[in-house]
């Protein structure tokens, strides 16, 4: 029942995203046919042909209905620019983004929660102050600036762009090391910004629990301090923190876009940019749907995960 409601809500959100995407990007100025053919010898007749190919000659509402109906068939449309199905184009770029975002999120969550717990448990200690201070500062740092600084500071240590060198040996180990080498700066950038948020979330979440009566109970039972923390405080505090971590996934997406731009990381963020210059309507719509979809799914996951981890939720 509750699950059904959540799923329904998520589905509704996606529908709204699809509708919004359609109209929002139609308002983006520019005629895709003109920008496609600019600088090439073209005739008016050819432009008209192209327009008909893309269905841009039809009235807006017709375009909308055909978009909706193909969407219902799982077809995201065809990219003007790449002349291929949007789903395929996005699919190609999904991997790098998932790799970057996944790596960064894993590190950020691990590090963030760990630091947050330590900081909160020893509130106002030097460790806490340092952690909180650094986190607040990193939180204030614009992602792209950090990326550029890192690039400038590290000089020749790391490659300045992309995910792979073209002349790396084809065996798996070399390729993996090459990708890892390229991944260092982008993921540090993304981790720095996202992790800061997670530290603060975890810290305040644990601080909320610090005066819970059940901790007094645990101490009264004779538990060691770290056992009180590990067995009682953290399991409680980590629940809202994890939920928030999942809810803040939009932040990761935003960070990924800027990071990808700075490091020419061949993911969805870069694709988004290229699509905007078209404007490649169907690709933009598809991207919005995918990114918003990712956030929706993350929210849903957060919900489900919360249900699994927190026994109290089942009763509701």
């Amino acid at each position, binding site marked *: 029942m509750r699950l059904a409601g959540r799923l329904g809500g998520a589905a509704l959100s996606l529908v709204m995203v699809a509708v919004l995407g359609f109209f929002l990007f139609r308002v983006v100025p520019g005629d895709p046919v003109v*920008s496609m053919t600019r600088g090439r010898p073209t005739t008016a007749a050819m432009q008209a042909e192209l327009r008909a190919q893309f269905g841009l000659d039809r009235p807006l509402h017709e375009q909308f209905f055909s978009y909706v109906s193909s969407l219902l068939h799982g077809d995201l449309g065809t990219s003007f620019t790449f002349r291929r199905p949007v789903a395929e184009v996005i699919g190609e770029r999904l991997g790098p983004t998932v790799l970057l975002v996944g790596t960064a999120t894993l590190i950020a969550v691990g*590090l963030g929660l760990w630091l947050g717990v330590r900081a909160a448990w020893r509130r106002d200690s030097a460790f806490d102050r340092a952690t909180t201070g650094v986190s607040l500062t990193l939180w204030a740092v614009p992602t792209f600036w950090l990326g550029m600084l890192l690039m400038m500071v590290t000089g020749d*240590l790391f490659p300045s762009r992309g995910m792979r*060198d073209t*002349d790396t040996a084809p065996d798996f180990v070399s390729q993996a090391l*090459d990708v890892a080498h390229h991944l260092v700066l982008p993921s540090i950038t993304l981790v720095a910004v996202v992790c800061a948020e997670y530290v603060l979330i975890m810290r305040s979440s644990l601080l909320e629990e610090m005066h819970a009566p059940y901790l007094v109970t645990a101490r009264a039972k004779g538990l060691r301090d770290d056992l009180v923390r590990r067995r009682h405080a953290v399991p409680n505090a980590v629940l809202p923190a994890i939920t928030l971590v999942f809810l803040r996934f939009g932040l990761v997406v935003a960070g990924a876009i800027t990071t990808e731009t700075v490091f020419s990381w061949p993911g969805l963020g870069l694709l988004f940019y290229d699509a905007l210059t078209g*404007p490649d309507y169907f690709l933009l719509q598809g991207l919005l749907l995918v990114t918003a979809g990712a956030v929706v799914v993350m929210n849903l996951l957060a919900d489900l995960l919360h249900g699994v981890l927190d026994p109290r939720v089942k009763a509701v």
Partner: protein
Amino acid sequence: MRVKLCALLATAATLGLATPPATAEGPDILKVAIVQQIDSMNPFLAVFQSSTEIGRLMYDYLTAYAADDQRVTEGLANRWEPSADKLTWTFTVPKGKAWSDGEPITAQDVAFTYNLMLTNEVARTANGSFVTNFSSVTATDNQTVVIKTKAPQVTMLALDIPIVPKHVWEKVGDIKDYANDQMPVVGSGPFVLTEHVPGQFIKLRVNNTYWRGAAKIDELHFVYFQNSDAAVQALGKGEVHLVNRMTPAQFDSLRDKADVARNKAQGRRFTELLINPGAQTNAGEPIGDGNPALKDVRVRRAIAQAIDLDALLQRVSLGYAEKGAGLVPPVFGKWHWQPSPSEERKFDPAAANAALDAAGFPRKADGTRFSLRLTGRAGRAYDEQASEFLKRQLGDIGIPLDVRLVSDNQLNEVTTAATYDLAFSGWATNIDPDFVLGLHTCAQRPGADGKGGTTDAYFCDKTYDELYARQLSEFDEGKRVEIVKQMQARFYDQVPSVVLAYDNALEAYRSDRFARFTTQPAQGGVIMAQNGMWGYYGAEPVVRATSATSWVGWGVLLVGFMAVVLTVMVRTNRRQATAEERE
């Protein structure tokens, strides 16, 4: 447990450090930075400049342009003959040229390609304009192609259409859905496409059976960059070997860089300032909302006179451009037009002021005459800076500017809807000037619905149109050059736009890896974005000595980093452990 996880992650992140830099031995690879996306590898669909350029490496055209002087030379065809009425052209495709899979290249392939475009609307997407005037294409035998045109066409030797192998493409069902990604892609050019990872890179290897002889490099990689800044950086680090489209500042930054050679070349592009001359559709209906004052050619001339092209050249282009005049850049020497001293409008604000007074636009009490909007592209360095200069210079003649820097799309929209007074624009020109001249004919203005136009200057002049028609059927090149120059003079005189500058193409390459490249033209020519593939084809690698990489330094760094991480974690844990006693 969480501690271990963190340590593991840190290790994983640091492992990247241990990666060896590019191997020093192995095949000669030329890595080229590209900033523009690749839209499609299907030559019938690819419209981006980057894709077209790679297409040239994969497929030869019927004819080519020589590297040294850009004259028409042998492509797939080595001989051509127009009929007396210029309506029938006979091309000869000699024996001995082969596709990269070994099949011979014949006239059948040429006829197949052209006929595909004639019959299939989708196949016309990229290069359709070249065949609109064709009435039939037939291969009379394996060596002869006969093309009949509806009207005489002067550009028959400038058909920039990649010829595809019939034996591959006749099996293609739907051109629209064909990505042309059956690696290696069968082609006729000096390189063969072997791998394409969208958004990352494109790999080509040398075509050893190329009829001109194999290129000196083994592989050619195009690496994608989000912006030229990153590309320039990568060049500095040696991650790529060849970069173009640099900004003057970037170009300057490489001046003293070791192992980097710069190439300042004459470019095919010009930058112009559009002056809305009262835009109309092709039916003569006014569109847009240009300031009516600009309909007066005297006003347009006065504006042109008030712009200090030299200042823009020095301060904005940092000298990396040539002063603008006609529509054809000087790189195409014979077509280029320069005003004679008597025709030239010299920078003269006083004269401009006087002209405006005379034209009936006196200064008002506040010292202004009328204000204009100046639209440019945000993010294009030239527009951002030049607008500051124009603002000042036009301000001096009593025309305050409202500068609007907008996105690429918005700029397109503004120019196609003619909702501008002044706007920055620019075009890349081809060896044959037909395209850039044709842009400014009345027919290129949009239809009643505001669509279908290709001009953004909205120039419509009877004299000019007549000249255009004449040059199109003038097969005597000397006479045609004359007409083309007359057209440019007319354009200059009527000023629907001011050609501000012919931008230099700024390129740089790793001189420690490559000794030289073939430029087009030979003097002051470009390496990339040629009307041909000479730059890549003629790349000569340096004979290299193996260089040792400092593995030790990497190792030390790695170990040090790990040690710091571990120490921090252990110490925190210990402190935590003792802290429990304090509670």
